[in-house]
């Protein structure tokens, strides 16, 4: 067995709505894979099928070498997007209950729970009721519940949503740590930046179809660099620098963005050549090639493919928060 997950031609519909269509997916053992795409793309549905919570209408699945996750549930850790705790249960008892359901032997569970609570900066909450914890704290408790049985495969659905930056960093470390211990990790997010920070590989889903499946570096290399960033030498040079850059052959237009001034290039132009010319001809303090982000790649693929959404609309869709889209998808069933 070399693959943690294999999906072939998987299709899932809810009533008339097609949630996932013809999905082929392979996840290597030991990797850290991001499942990305905007809200409502079909990420959660795909994950639920992997978890055997939903069953595909068509197609084949293999999870950790078994036909279905039903046979390997104890080796999988899962943090769903729709997550909660037993409000009236004590934190320690809740984690123990989940661990026991995952087949962990009774001996030593208490000690393990204590260690994990310390690890996520929640010492001494074991005897508190879950409802007494804040939402972020509850999320850390849920994370412990998904990894305490040392799973071979860890699936995290939107793990960062609702966390503050400090806890986001902590969770990122914990996820990487899991991978270093040999766990195969898959996590889904609609915030592409998060995937870029953590993953070696991403699978991109859009409107139920897989549109991309590659390593981060390979994906970025696919999209040619089409803009150059620069900063004027002094604030007084802003106008001169912008007009000098605009007049360079191959530069389409110059925008001011939150990353500085950005010179957009025409198709087929050698970016390195433009970079050299800007450096020699314009009064600039800094000039660099803007590396494409995952979001750029996504927008490039989707806008090129369907064309029914403008680039701005697509970017807005990626940035909108909330999970209402995915919930509605269920309701329409």
């Amino acid at each position, binding site marked *: 067995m070399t693959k943690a997950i294999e999906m072939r031609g998987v299709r899932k519909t809810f009533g008339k709505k097609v949630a996932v269509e013809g999905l082929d997916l392979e996840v290597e053992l030991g990797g850290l894979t991001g499942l990305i795409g905007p809200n409502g793309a079909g990420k959660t549905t795909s994950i639920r099928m992997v978890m055997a919570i939903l069953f595909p209408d068509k197609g084949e699945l293999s999870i950790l070498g078994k036909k279905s996750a039903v046979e390997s549930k104890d080796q999988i850790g*899962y943090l*769903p997007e729709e997550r909660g705790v037993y409000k009236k249960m004590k934190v320690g008892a809740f984690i123990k209950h989940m661990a026991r*359901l995952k087949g962990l032997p009774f001996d030593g569970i208490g000690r393990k729970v204590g260690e994990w609570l310390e690890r996520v900066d929640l010492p001494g909450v074991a005897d508190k009721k879950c409802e007494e914890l804040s939402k972020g704290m509850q999320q850390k408790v849920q994370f412990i519940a998904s990894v305490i049985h040392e799973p071979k495969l860890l699936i995290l659905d939107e793990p960062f949503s609702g966390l503050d930056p400090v806890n986001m960093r902590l969770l990122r470390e914990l996820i990487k740590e899991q991978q270093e211990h040999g766990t195969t990790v898959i996590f889904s997010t609609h915030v592409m930046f998060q995937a870029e920070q953590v993953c070696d590989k991403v699978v991109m889903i859009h409107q139920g179809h897989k549109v991309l499946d590659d390593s981060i570096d390979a994906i970025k290399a696919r999209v040619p660099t089409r803009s150059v960033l620069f900063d004027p030498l002094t604030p007084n040079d802003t106008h001169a620098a912008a007009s000098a850059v605009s007049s360079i052959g191959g530069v389409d237009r110059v925008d001011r963005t939150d990353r500085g001034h950005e010179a957009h290039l025409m198709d087929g132009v050698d970016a390195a050549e433009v970079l050299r010319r800007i450096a020699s001809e314009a009064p600039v303090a800094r000039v660099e090639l803007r590396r494409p982000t995952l979001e750029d790649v996504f927008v490039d693929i989707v806008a090129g493919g369907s064309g029914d959404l403008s680039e701005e609309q697509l970017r807005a869709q990626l940035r909108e928060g909330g999970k209402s889209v995915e919930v509605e998808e269920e309701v329409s069933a």
Partner: protein
Amino acid sequence: MSVFGMEPGKVARVAVREFASTALTKGFIIGVFVFPAILVVVMPLVISLINSSKAPPVRGTLAIVDRSGVVAEDVGKQLLFAAAEAEEEAAQEAAEGDEAAPTAPAPSGGMADLQSQLAAGQDLGAVQRAALDRYTSTPIIITEVRDTNADIEEIQKEIRAEQAEEGGDEIDRLVGVLVVDSDAVVKGSDGYGSYQLFTRPKLDARVSGDIEDAARDAIRERRYAAAGFNANDLRELTTIEKRKTEEITETGTRESNAEFQMILAAAPMFLILIAVATGGQYLLTTTIEEKSSRVVEVLLSAVSATELMTGKILGQMLVGLTLAAIYGGLGVAGMFFIPFLAGVSFAPSVLVLFPICFVLAYMMIASLMAAAGSAVNELREAQSFMVPIMMLLMLPYFLAFPISLNPNAVYSVVLSMVPPVSPFVILIRAASTDPPPVWQMAASVVASGIGALVCLWFAGKVFRVGLLMFGKPPNLGTLIKWVRMA
């Protein structure tokens, strides 16, 4: 190891949590004992309140138009004696309630006193008015004899006019008019006549009852005398002491409780009804809680929907059994400590059927409850599903009495074969004085078993789909679609 595709260990773990989070809570323990406490404390209280509810101390005057000419005075006396008797009883009760008090002294103006006063030739009106001050807790009605030929409508007008005006002494107001027929005492051509009472509006029914009693007693005594009988002799002749029927037992005899046994036939059924309704209700609540707190998908990462539902159903079954054991135990304890309950027994068939019927009835109701709980997002939305399920449970409750009276009527036999009421009905029939043949019991159990399997199958499908559905609660059509989908 797996049973029906489920891991027994996981199912047990879910069941244990379900039981612990329901039955091992303060709320449950208090609730369990509040119910019998209400029965033990409140019921006797209500019964004693009903028994001791005497007529309110109404004061007023009763006009009597005595066309027979011989009854009026006696009606007045009877009313007075009744008041004296009630007053004496009340005094006695007060003395009993207050243990420190020595035996109550015979109250002056008691029955004996009155009789001697009247025998000595005192005016009835004066004696009645004297009683006014002494009797505080009983109604006192002074009688006022009108002309034999008085116009009844005129007196009625008088009462109407009095009702309209305010103030005045209560005792002087008319509470009504009693008209005694001329042939009430002496037989006329059409047999004996009677009496008619007209009262003011809203006169307490117990007061008018007292007046009617007095009228009847007075007329009867007069009839005896007119026919030449001695009233005392007749009373003795017609009175026969009633003795309790005794049942012959192996060693001797004991008071028969056949009537009670008939009521008790429904007891095992009620025990199951309470246990099933409680377990089912909790199952609904905890399922909705798991859904609304979003813990359900976390659970589904560890157990399958079927394992979760099975565990929950078993856990709440344990809760129902605990309840049945506590109440059943209290009942058995009652048999040892309450003489009236001693000797109550159930046929062996009831003891065999009881656990089977409990499990089958519970499986049917609980699976419907689990399905309802999984389909909705909050308790409020569950109401529309709860009503039909609760009505199913109310059915045996209403049918209990007619079925225990006619355990082998056609409707009893048919209902004992129709799930989901079948387990309840067969239990009533088995516990009745005329139990059904064994084949009918077996057939009923089989019918209930099929019903339980169908309910579990349906619930399993709805549960699997419903758990992850958030949004508008489904209607029946959607539920059927889910069943096809799952």
